């Protein structure tokens, strides 16, 4: 049987929980960011430790290895510059054709690099925290990606850090299309609780002809993610709901469990 002080303690915790859960959403977000700012000293410490470990690793790397890497990067840089020149010419041609047809001009993506500082401590969500915040121009719902593909979107923004909700989280749904002749549309949603590299693409047409290896990219519907951001590739598909729709299993392009750096798209 609980004695009186325990009743009081439990009552206070219950009251506090009820108050917290019934707070208005903006207040809750601000309070959450405020409580989370208690960890700012540890962010700095963690960052310094990683940097020190990196410097120690660099010091141990032999000069011949560095020179070989430098040469490889020079070569890659030249190839990328040539590809960029070609892409620029294609972009100009595309703009000219769009102008002739009276279509809206495509804006180039404006990206900002961010470091992943923390991951979700609870096992039933998929989020991470990055070291960019409102002072860096980050706003909620901005898309987050890597060169391999889409990662997620910004969920909440603090002054110096932001929370990114990843693909596969129940709160991150993305309108996507399969790169097949019919351009079948669907919605990317969560996969399994243990499979961070797979997601499910649902609400596909029952007549969708999907083959393993077909690429999936954002469709641009929904207003958050711009079109043509690569998401992943189709692994398998099967009809559901007595054949009323098709569901595809999609392997994500970005490895979400090994993210160190991500790009935030500032102007979708």
């Amino acid at each position: 049987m609980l004695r009186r002080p325990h009743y009081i303690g439990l009552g206070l915790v219950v009251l506090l929980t009820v108050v917290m859960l019934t707070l208005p959403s903006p207040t809750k977000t601000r309070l959450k960011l405020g409580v989370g700012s208690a960890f700012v000293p540890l962010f700095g410490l963690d960052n310094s430790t990683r940097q020190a470990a990196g410097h120690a690793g660099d010091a141990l790397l032999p000069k011949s290895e560095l020179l070989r890497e430098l040469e490889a990067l020079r070569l890659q840089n030249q190839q990328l510059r040539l590809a960029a020149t070609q892409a620029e010419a294609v972009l100009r041609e595309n703009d000219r054709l769009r102008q002739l047809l009276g279509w809206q001009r495509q804006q180039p993506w404006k990206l900002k690099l961010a470091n992943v500082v923390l991951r979700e401590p609870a096992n039933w969500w998929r989020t991470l925290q990055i070291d960019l915040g409102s002072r860096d121009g980050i706003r909620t719902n901005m898309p987050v990606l890597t060169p391999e593909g889409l990662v997620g979107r910004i969920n909440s923004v603090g002054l110096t850090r932001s929370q990114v909700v990843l693909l596969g989280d129940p709160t991150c749904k993305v309108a996507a299309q399969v790169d097949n002749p019919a351009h079948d549309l669907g919605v990317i949603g969560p996969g399994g609780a243990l499979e961070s590299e797979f997601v499910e693409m649902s609400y596909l047409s029952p007549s969708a002809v999907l083959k393993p290896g077909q690429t999936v990219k954002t469709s641009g519907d929904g207003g958050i993610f711009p079109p043509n951001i690569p998401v992943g590739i189709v692994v398998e598909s099967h009809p559901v709901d007595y054949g009323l729709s098709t569901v595809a299993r999609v392997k994500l392009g970005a490895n979400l469990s090994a993210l160190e750096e991500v790009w935030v798209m500032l102007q979708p």
Partner: protein
Amino acid sequence: MKSWLPTFFVLVTAYLAVFWEAAFTPLRHLLGAQIDLLPPLIVYAALCTDVRTTCLLACLGGLWFDSLSQNPLGVTMLPLALVGLTLYSQRELILRDQTFAQFTLGLAASGAAPLLTLGLLLTTGHTPLLGWGTLWQLLVMTVGGALATPVFFVGFEWLHRSLAHERIAETSFRPDREIRRGR
């Protein structure tokens, strides 16, 4: 050790444990789930500290955890408090110095706390990522928490011995009552 020191150490450990859970990822990559260190800590607080420390740990630990998570703020507090205060109410009946008892209580607390949190999340209309894989994650959390519980007890005991004044054992011997025997 003064009365506020155990509270301070328990809260600092909770603060570091929450940060560790969010920053240390190798275990998650290896096992597919992250171990939660707050339930083992609440077992220690409930058995070896007072009700104030147990409630403070449930509130602050829960708030810190939720602030780094997508959990709604405050949802982890109540499960931790329920587990902690249930143990606190039965602490006279528990052999808290036995490693097996610590392990068993850690197992129960680490299994109950996430289940209660999930129940609260579902009750408040949230949709966490659940599936068959969740059973494995709960198993990892339960066993991991159980293994961590005796470690916390040993760690805090060491801290207590290092910082507290050693109590002098009183004996029945009194020099003024000593009978001097002569030849």
